[in-house]
């Protein structure tokens, strides 16, 4: 059942070529948001090496921006760890959709887990590999290209951010648009609209109650609770869905 990946140049290039178009929205977002991060790193007196190093090893957008303040006015490591845990807690939910898929990826599995950002999670759900393409390599290149975009943006921002004259205001809307496209697709293809409605309403409620900076954890808590409560009804609907495929 484990098909080994064929590491042949032709197969690799084909997968890379198929994966690239799917990642263009993330290219836009990561390059420019990464540059914003690089500029901040440079502003606190660290150089492009640090910008690239942080983006390569952490690879988590919002956490890296929060981290800037830790680097600027240092605090205890325990506190750093706790804040990271809370900010990135949502990632714990992402993996459960990919238990089987990543298991099949063999040696690439740790890297796939390491690079599972919001945007990569979204692309892995929406991008469909063409028939003649190795699916595992296709998924790998989506993750890998996103990682490269993020590192490149950070390094470029730290190096040249201060000389940037192109008005890039608003370019990060590419990320909003990416999520909107995937929501639209899932809305039209999924057998039940309840998960999307629950997700949207839970997040709006959390936004109103907890404000923009603390909304994710309560939102995920409400989502998981409601989805577990409605399991008897919804499980039947998704079974019909997978049979229909």
């Amino acid at each position, binding site marked *: 059942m484990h098909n080994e990946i064929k590491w042949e140049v032709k197969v690799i290039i084909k997968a890379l070529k198929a994966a690239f178009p799917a990642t263009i929205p993330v290219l836009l977002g990561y390059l420019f948001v990464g540059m914003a991060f690089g500029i901040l790193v440079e502003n606190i007196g660290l150089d492009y090496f640090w910008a690239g190093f942080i983006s390569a*090893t952490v690879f988590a957008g919002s956490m890296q921006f929060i981290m800037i303040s830790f680097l600027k006015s240092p605090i205890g490591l325990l506190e750093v760890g706790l804040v990271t845990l809370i900010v990135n807690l949502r990632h*714990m939910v992402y993996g459960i959709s990919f*238990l089987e898929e990543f298991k099949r990826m063999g040696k690439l599995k740790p890297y796939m887990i*390491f690079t599972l950002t919001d945007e990569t999670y979204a692309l892995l759900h929406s991008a469909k590999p063409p028939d003649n393409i190795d699916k595992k390599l296709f998924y790998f290149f989506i993750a890998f290209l996103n990682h490269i975009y993020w590192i490149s943006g950070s390094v470029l921002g730290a190096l040249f951010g201060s000389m940037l004259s192109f008005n890039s205001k608003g370019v990060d809307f590419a990320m909003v*648009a990416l999520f909107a*496209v995937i929501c*639209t697709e899932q809305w039209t293809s999924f057998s039940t609209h309840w998960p999307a409605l629950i*997700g949207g309403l839970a997040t709006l409620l959390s936004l109103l109650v907890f404000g923009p900076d603390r909304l994710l954890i309560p939102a995920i808590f409400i989502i998981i609770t409601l*989805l577990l409560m409605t399991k008897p009804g919804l*499980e039947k609907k998704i079974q019909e869905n997978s049979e229909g495929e």
Partner: protein
Amino acid sequence: MPQIESNPINIVLVVAAVTFFTRIMPFLFFDSNKNAPGSVIYLGKIVPPAIMAMLLIYSLRNVAPLKYPYGLPELIALSTVILLHLWKKNNLVSILSGTVLYMFLVQKIFS
């Protein structure tokens, strides 16, 4: 009292390690769907549309509907993305057109 840390490398390593931990958590508990409880497998299937809706709203969390420009650039660009996507069903066309439109709106119209 925890010791105050001023070496960047220690901070970076802690953030990197904890971030990776949050990502690997489910894989540490469940090797595959075979040894995962039914409710986890169910969540794995049902949670993506809910999380996508969450991420969409999260990405718009700083829009202020009561202050100028009242979230209008977001509303206009977002509607364009969704309608374009329902019509053309092409990810790139929808995302790039929406982004260019949004940049034009915030830079030229509502600047």
